[in-house]
């Protein structure tokens, strides 16, 4: 049922960061810094995207000894397509709204 809903501005911000380097695995704090999202916003979005098969995650051992492994994330193929479509839809809606707003 959620699939017909528009992605939130936070999700779009995350998509923008993830689609820049779709093949690169990125970790939570890095994503938080790049998107400006706090962990309280970021983690629920990551969980939802993983549940929907749009994001994949893996554990990566730390190169530094004694430090725990990190949870890394990147878009799946379906996720990359979805993210591009959502960004396109969002920018199309913006361009439809902007002219009306400008002359109102």
């Amino acid at each position, binding site marked *: 049922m959620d699939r017909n809903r528009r992605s939130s501005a936070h999700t779009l911000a995350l998509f923008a960061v993830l689609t820049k380097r779709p093949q690169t695995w990125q*970790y939570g*704090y890095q994503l*938080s810094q790049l998107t400006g999202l*706090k*962990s309280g916003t970021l*983690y*629920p979005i990551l969980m939802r995207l993983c549940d929907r098969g749009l994001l994949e*995650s893996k554990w990566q051992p730390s190169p530094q000894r004694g*430090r725990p492994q990190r*949870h890394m994330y990147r878009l799946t193929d379906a996720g990359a397509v979805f993210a591009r479509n959502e960004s396109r839809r969002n920018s199309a809606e913006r361009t439809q709204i902007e002219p009306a707003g400008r002359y109102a």
Partner: protein
Amino acid sequence: MNSLRVLSGRVARSLVKHAAMALPKERGDWAQAMINELDYLPPDLSGVSWALGCIYAAYSERTRTMIRSFESLPRWVLALEMLVCFVPLTLLFASVILTGLHGGFTLPVCLLYCSGAVLGPLGLLAALRSIFSKSGAMSRVAMAGLCLLTAWNLAAYSAQILTFGQSHWSDWWREIVIIAVLPALAVIHLVFINTHRRGSLIAA
């Protein structure tokens, strides 16, 4: 300065561990991810901020899980819950009407009692209709009406206790649970279910 860093590190660790505990079991990986990520944050207050965010995320996730389990309750369980919550107030409504008809109450008192107790039969009807009807979710007007009646019932009953007074807590706690608390909880649950049902109908 150094001790402040150590302290904030300890606070952040405790907070993020709490977040990990609050997350549902099936989110074990995410709980571990939150804990591990803390080791890579700069040793300042940003760790505490991160951990507080994790608590928020964990609570929201826990709430979502609860919502899903509430939504998947069998109809007969919901019906039973509504019966338990609304039937005592419905009986009170009936007894107030009967007493009023036999001249046991003056008209203003009877109207006052009825205005609060009418939540019983109305709530029961609305609940059973919402549970068993195939037509969909309860309307917003009906939900708002039930909420207003609940507020009025709570206010009227509290005013009655404050006005007439009761000698001891044990004399009236059962009454307040049966007359005010149970129907209020049932209404909250009804509104909760119907709001989510409306959401899914709109999204579908």
